[in-house]
């Protein structure tokens, strides 16, 4: 498959290297002359220096024969125009944009350009990772100053069996609710935590990390 990558910087290099190693033919379009010299030394790829949002540049780079194009410059407006020229002028139907502003993912889709946002993907991964640990950030309140977080208590947590009054939570944090089986408890100092409990932790944004550590144990 013939792949064209339009962009700049380190991610352009690493992605190109990756795609080349999978056996595809890669053409790189980068507007920075020095980067182009470096790329042509390090990659087994066709490297073209120029502004990829001009049809003349894409034509020089052989766009007419390309199967897949990825626009990954740091400017979303450039990525849009690159993909539109690629599709409409050169008939590259598989033209994909990497958007920088996650809000633009939807904009691009409405304009008919498949797009993904790396910020969106990373934030989803972090979310999933936290979910996996049984910790869910429910909602930031008060303009992001207050966090409400649900934590599932596991048997290896140091708070197991302890009454709330004996758990040293940092200042500005509080266990607001304990959910045990199907029962919801507004806890008092004497309420002890059991394996499988889900607690609702109310903290200030800056104390969330320390509060989570106190509940789940240091090493996390």
């Amino acid at each position, binding site marked *: 498959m013939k792949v064209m990558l339009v962009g700049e910087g380190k991610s352009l290099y690493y992605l190109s290297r990756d795609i080349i190693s999978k056996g595809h033919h890669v053409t790189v379009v980068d507007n920075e002359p020095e980067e182009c010299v470096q790329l042509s030394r390090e990659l087994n790829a066709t490297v073209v220096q120029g502004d990829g*949002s*001009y*049809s*003349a540049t894409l034509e020089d780079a052989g766009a007419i024969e390309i199967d897949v194009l990825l626009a990954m410059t740091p400017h979303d*407006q450039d990525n*849009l*125009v690159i993909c539109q*020229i690629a599709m*409409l002028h050169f008939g590259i139907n598989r033209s994909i944009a990497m958007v920088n502003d996650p809000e633009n993912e939807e*904009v691009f889709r409405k304009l008919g350009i498949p797009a993904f946002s790396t910020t969106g993907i990373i934030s989803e991964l972090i979310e999933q990772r936290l979910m996996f640990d049984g910790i869910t950030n429910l909602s930031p309140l008060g303009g992001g100053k207050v966090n409400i977080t649900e934590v599932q208590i596991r048997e290896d947590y140091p708070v197991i069996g302890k009454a709330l009054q004996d758990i040293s939570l940092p200042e500005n944090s509080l266990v607001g609710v304990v959910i045990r089986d199907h029962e919801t408890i507004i806890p008092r100092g004497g309420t002890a935590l059991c394996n499988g409990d889900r607690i609702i932790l109310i903290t200030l944004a800056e104390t969330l990390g320390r509060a989570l550590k106190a509940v789940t144990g240091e090493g996390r």
Partner: protein
Amino acid sequence: MTPAEYVIVVGCGRLGSRVANFLSRRGKSVVVLDKDESRFQALASDFSGFKIQGDAARISVLKQAKIEKADFIICTTHEDNVNLFVAQVAKKMFNVPLVLARVYDPQKEELYSKLGIRTVCPTDIAADRFLEMLVFSGVEPLENKE
């Protein structure tokens, strides 16, 4: 009295500020957007519209300018791609009735007029005017111009 028409001018350089001053004097309700706050100095002292500092290629900035209420939007930044981006967002996502964009590159102009974006290309206009003036000055009509 019907409310004044609401206009967004993107870019406050020589062209944008001129258009904004003119429309403001004509009683339109004008909002000017520019990334660079110092550009607003180009606006006349009697300019009665609003100024918003921000990158028009971000939807949140366009929303702040109440793009959904605009009667028309004129994109005048010196970057073709910003103008084309904003123009398409205005037309396709916010259904702004009249969208105009300056595009320097004649090839882009051709492509985007096919997409229904109304563009003005200073390069084409200047070339046409120059050639016209040559003919008027008594220079032989150029061969490929009939």
